[in-house]
């Protein structure tokens, strides 16, 4: 009887929440169709699959086990691909996590509502600009006779133009800078909404106790958004190899990469595109993609574990 009652009450509650539940189920359906169903395709990473066989080939192709994984690991540039992917991801992470927090704190401290809105809008608009356009801007500004080189020559800093776009030492700074510029404002919105949830009485009390503005940020705002920071950190660590908070690593490496800087710009995803997808080697591409997904899952669990240990906050 008690179980029946409980069941009834669950359905009753769902019935009461039918509008919200509809949105939830639509979202879940979307997730299922586009994220879970395609996972079936992972099977091709272990098969001698050819694109010419289509979907049928997933069931009929010869089983080759770990052949493609071994091929990837034995590739002459396996270590440089891993190194480049990690260096790009970690460097972006170091800058793209603190900067949105800093921006959110600055915006929160602006008194004028108008200025606040303008700063917020201007800072998040670049998020909507495609990486193709951003790469085009880079070309335009940074080419030999572009604005930056012309300016540096005119003030006498350099005599010959700097090869920003093709020099390997410039790829990483450009990738980090553009990632910060493009995505900083967008992530700041998340932290701003977390800040908005902090009890204003805490600030009033601190002010009455004579706390300076910096101290209020340090002792109230930052602890108040700590759990949000943790969640964002863990989630972005999960997507670390994909680009974390700093947009897509692939887009950046593909569009800003070239022969000149390939020593640092060739990452796992661009290599998959060149050697796997563009040559129709989907099985090989799937194997490398799976390796990357496994690393990402390990990163999520590890970061969640440490976060729980250190700060008490965690995803699960």
């Amino acid at each position: 009887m008690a179980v029946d009652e409980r069941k009834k009450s669950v359905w009753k509650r769902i019935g009461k929440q039918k509008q919200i539940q509809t949105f939830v189920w639509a979202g879940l359906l979307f997730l299922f169709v586009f994220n879970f169903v395609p996972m079936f395709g992972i099977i091709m990473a272990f098969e001698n699959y050819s694109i010419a066989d289509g979907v049928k080939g997933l069931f009929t192709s010869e089983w080759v086990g770990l052949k493609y994984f071994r091929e990837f690991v034995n590739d002459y540039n396996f270590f440089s691909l891993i190194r480049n992917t990690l260096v790009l991801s970690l460097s972006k992470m170091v800058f793209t996590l603190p900067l949105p927090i800093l921006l959110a704190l600055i915006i929160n401290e602006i008194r004028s509502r108008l200025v606040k809105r303008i700063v917020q809008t201007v800072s998040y608009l670049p998020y909507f600009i495609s990486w193709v356009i951003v790469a085009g801007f880079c070309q335009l500004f940074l080419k030999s006779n572009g604005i930056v080189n012309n300016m540096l020559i005119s003030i006498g800093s350099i005599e010959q133009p700097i090869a920003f776009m093709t020099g390997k030492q410039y790829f990483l700074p450009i990738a980090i800078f553009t990632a910060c510029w493009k995505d900083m404002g967008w992530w700041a919105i998340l932290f701003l909404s977390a800040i908005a949830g902090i009890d204003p009485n805490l600030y009033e009390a601190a002010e009455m106790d004579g706390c300076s503005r910096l101290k209020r940020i340090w002792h109230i705002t930052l602890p108040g958004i700590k759990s949000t920071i943790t969640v964002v950190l863990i989630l972005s660590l999960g997507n670390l190899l994909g680009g974390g908070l700093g947009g897509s690593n692939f887009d950046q490496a593909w569009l800003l990469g070239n022969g000149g800087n390939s020593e640092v710009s060739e990452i796992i995803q661009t290599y998959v595109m060149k050697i796997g997808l563009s040559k129709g080697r989907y099985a090989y591409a799937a194997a490398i993609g799976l390796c990357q997904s496994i690393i990402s899952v390990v990163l999520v669990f590890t970061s969640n574990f440490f976060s729980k240990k250190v700060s008490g906050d965690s995803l699960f």
Partner: protein
Amino acid sequence: MKTKSSEKRKRWLAILLVTGLLAGVLSACGNGTRAETSSAGGQNGSASEEAQKTEQKSGETGGDEADSGEVKTLSIFIDHTWYPVDSFTGAIPDEITKRTGITLDVTVAVDTNQLGTMISSGELPDLVYTQRLLDTLSNPNICYSYEDLLSEYNVDWEIPAKQLGIARGYSQDGKAYTVLNMFADTSDWENSNSVPMVGSLSYRRDIYEEIGCPPMNSLDDLYAVMGQVKEKHPDMVPLQLLGQNWNTEVFKDLVGVGALRYIEQEDGSYQCYIRDERYKEVLLWLNKCYASGYISPDDQFFSDASQGFNADGYFFSCGCTQNGITGTNAELAAIDPSYVRWEMKPFDTAYYGQSSLGWSGVFISKNCKDPEAAIKFVQKMFTPEMQQLSQMGREGIDFTFDDKGFPVYSDEWMASVKADTNVKDYNTWFYLGGSTIIEADGRVAQMEEDWYKDAYPEIRKRYENLPWIEAARPIGETDEKIAEDKVTELIMPYEQRIIQASSQEEAAALYDELITNAEKSGLADVEAYVTQRVAELMPMYQ
């Protein structure tokens, strides 16, 4: 009451939003299903799809009215990202439609990965025009075999034996799924006024005369010339590496390596050209040019997104015979009538060895709504009459033949070449069954003799086509093919890194690294495979 009605409105809005979202999700699913079904061979399409196809057939292509003179539309994917036209318009396409009853709905590739994605998703249009993935497309699940269609629809087309053999070489079942256009033997060029499409170095003749016409018969000579140019015109880029295809090839030809992927050694084995000392010499020389400021890092060779330079901004330019110089000279003349670009006379060491099996082929996909019309169209495009039309225009209107059989263009045509409106007005880009000899003769007829008189006779003397080498390259998803693909992907970035290296020592070390990594990727196995296959195939081509 007011609150209730506003709640009601909200509820309706919510329902509308959710319905929209679900419709979006489901329609996306629907597309995926259709694609998957087609890729599985196109045999399992639903009734509604079939009905839709039938409807399309009768509405768009006319179904049984194929022979009634009604114009049919075939969709075509052109897998050449650089293609200068994206629509089947202009005087020549109009005439093609008039003579064949076919018009084309054109999609040009955005990048080189698009075709692979289209194959795997089963979303190929009626026709695919490509020079890549020939072995993947030569598959009965993806495309129709020409031989099957020719016999099924009784089309009278005797495909030349060599071209048929080449096409069959790409398939597993020994059938031809395409015929590559632009195939010619070495001997075919003997009666031509022009040259095959090979690397060419063009230069600004007016500036060359200004600096006193110094010798240009070695890489050292060219380096000295560029120094003089830079001194006289500091803002000029002495050497432009325009695209990604011809840059190093131009210099490889000049020093005698040629454009062969594998070069025969004294013991009869074949080695990849990257091992050749002369190739290393070219790369180190380009590094020296770069270090001296004679090459710009903004060149397209280094970055796809390069903005390029103004037509008058560079002295030497790497390109290929036939293509660049006519348009560039039109642009230059518009800036100043005295500006002109000539093709450079090849060095005494030059060798123009190629291994060409043809260029691109039309595939008729299994999604084609009218395979009969498609095969008849392709067959017609390979006839001499249509080759002339698609590559030189309308005989009697756009050109006439002189007594040697070479075309002489009309004043209107030549005016459009000079005004750089030829592509828009006439459009010679739909040579789907084109002949490389007709193309070359047609293009040279648009040039002034001075522009090429030093270069072309020398190139013709030093040219040979060795098709068996290309035919011997691995295909399919074999270990050798995978290794060759990896080596190919290595070469371009390494060339760029070597050229941009900060010293000759670093450049040499990078070259050695290229060879080491190529070997790690399986180069020796590929070379052994090619050596063996050449021995098998050479007699078929001789």
